[in-house]
């Protein structure tokens, strides 16, 4: 609570400033709506925006889950064999550096199911940090402990499960934190692209529609929901990380 307080103070101050500015200078609502107008719109359009939010959240969570499963599997394959890594890593990088807006139209054409196509796009965006961090983590084994496992004649499986995997957890969760934000970005961006094709009813689609109708207050309302979703995702990832690493890892120790 104490840590949240400074942020809360700034938020209230900014909102108050915004409200005063809009009222004092009589800014038209089709340019910048006041925070109170946005709040009223949120309540008035609750049903519409709630449905849209649910669609976006679904796509985001499915994409994040897919990115975690795929990313971890690929990372495991990479550390099992340098050959596999050398063969596949360039393509992982290729996937990472190609802008999703450029690939999304193709995927949306190829994949019939609109939700699935959005999930695929968001997964591609969220995948890289999971692969990169988990691979690094699985490789960053304490040399002394590795020697110890060798001395005890630990099997390959025991070394993986008891040494590499626990050692990789802090790296993995670092990747997860980045990936959770990217999954949301991927979901929204893909839906923007798909939205022009007339499919999807997520928050991005609502923003597009509201834009066409110059319903700027609803745009802001949808934007607020996306931002809040991102914050909630971040907090949730943080909680999971703390639960998993609680106690033993340095990063979870300072100031808690």
């Amino acid at each position, binding site marked *: 609570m104490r840590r949240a307080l400074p942020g809360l103070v700034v938020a209230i101050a900014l909102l108050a400033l915004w409200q005063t500015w809009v009222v004092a200078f009589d800014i038209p609502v089709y340019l910048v709506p006041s925070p109170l107008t946005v709040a009223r719109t949120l309540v008035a359009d609750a049903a519409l925006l709630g449905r849209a939010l649910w669609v976006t959240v679904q796509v985001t969570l499915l994409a994040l889950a897919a990115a975690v499963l795929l990313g971890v599997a690929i990372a495991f394959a990479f550390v099992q064999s340098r050959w596999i890594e050398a063969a596949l890593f360039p393509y992982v990088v290729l996937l990472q550096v190609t802008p999703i807006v450029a690939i999304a139209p193709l995927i949306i054409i190829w994949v019939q199911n609109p939700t699935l196509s959005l999930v695929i796009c968001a997964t591609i965006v969220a995948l890289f940090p999971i692969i990169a961090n988990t691979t690094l983590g699985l490789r960053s084994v*304490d040399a*002394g*402990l590795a*020697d*110890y*496992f*060798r*001395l*005890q*004649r*630990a099997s390959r499986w*025991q070394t993986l499960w*008891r*040494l590499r995997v*626990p*050692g990789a*957890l802090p790296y993995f969760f670092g990747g997860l934190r980045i990936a959770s934000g990217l999954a949301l970005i991927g979901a929204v961006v893909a839906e923007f692209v798909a939205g022009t094709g007339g499919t999807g009813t997520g928050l991005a689609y609502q923003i597009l529609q509201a834009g066409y109708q110059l319903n700027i207050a609803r745009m802001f309302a949808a934007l607020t929901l996306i931002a809040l979703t991102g914050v909630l995702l971040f907090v949730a990832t943080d909680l999971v990380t703390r639960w998993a690493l609680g*106690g*033993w*890892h*340095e990063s979870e*120790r300072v100031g808690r």
Partner: protein
Amino acid sequence: MSAIELRAVEKTWENGVQALRPLDLRVERGEIVTLLGPSGCGKSSLLNIVAGLTEASAGDVSVGPDERIGFVFQQATLMPWARVAANVRLPLDLAGVARAEANARAAEALRRVGLGAFAEVWPRELSGGMQMRASIARALVTEPTLLLMDEPFGALDEITRNRLDDELLRVRREQQLTVLFVTHSIHEAVYLSDRVVVMAARPGRVVAEVAITTDEPRDDAFRVSTTFARHARDLQQALLAAARDADEALA
């Protein structure tokens, strides 16, 4: 039957650097033998060869067939993600010992090194000395007959190190251990050893063997005795002579 017998063992690294010149070493059962020398003399490499972590380039390495080896590293090398008891239990877990028995043996090993009350804390919550004790408990839990120790107390303050030296001697009395111990401390070598193997660097080689012969009990009085001082002086002279030879060879 010796616990360890090395004949004409040598080690040359892949880059051509000679880490160890051919040497012979025999450690009898129940003996404490110390490898003493400056850094770079190959004493840790020699220990790793005995443990099987490093392969000798040539020569014969034989460790008694009935010996169970326990190894203690320079660092405690505990798993940070596991509590102390789970760390000590690790070798038993790896060997597939049943959980109940493993727990009992780990608790006993922790008690023996004075960490009975710390079974359920994280390694990072322990001081350096206590982490080392946990590491020793992990080595003792398999009931080894031969303990290989690579400068285990080198990173600790002198007071803690002296206390751990005492505990090592006590444990060794209790369960008839053979110990091969690496150190760069002359005083530690005199205090612990039945025999000290003095080594020199560049290339790594054995320059002298000094038996520490005394009937005095190894305790604080021994540390300030004339016997202790005499042995320490002998070892120091052997080390200095070796260093001088090396300097002359360079010049």
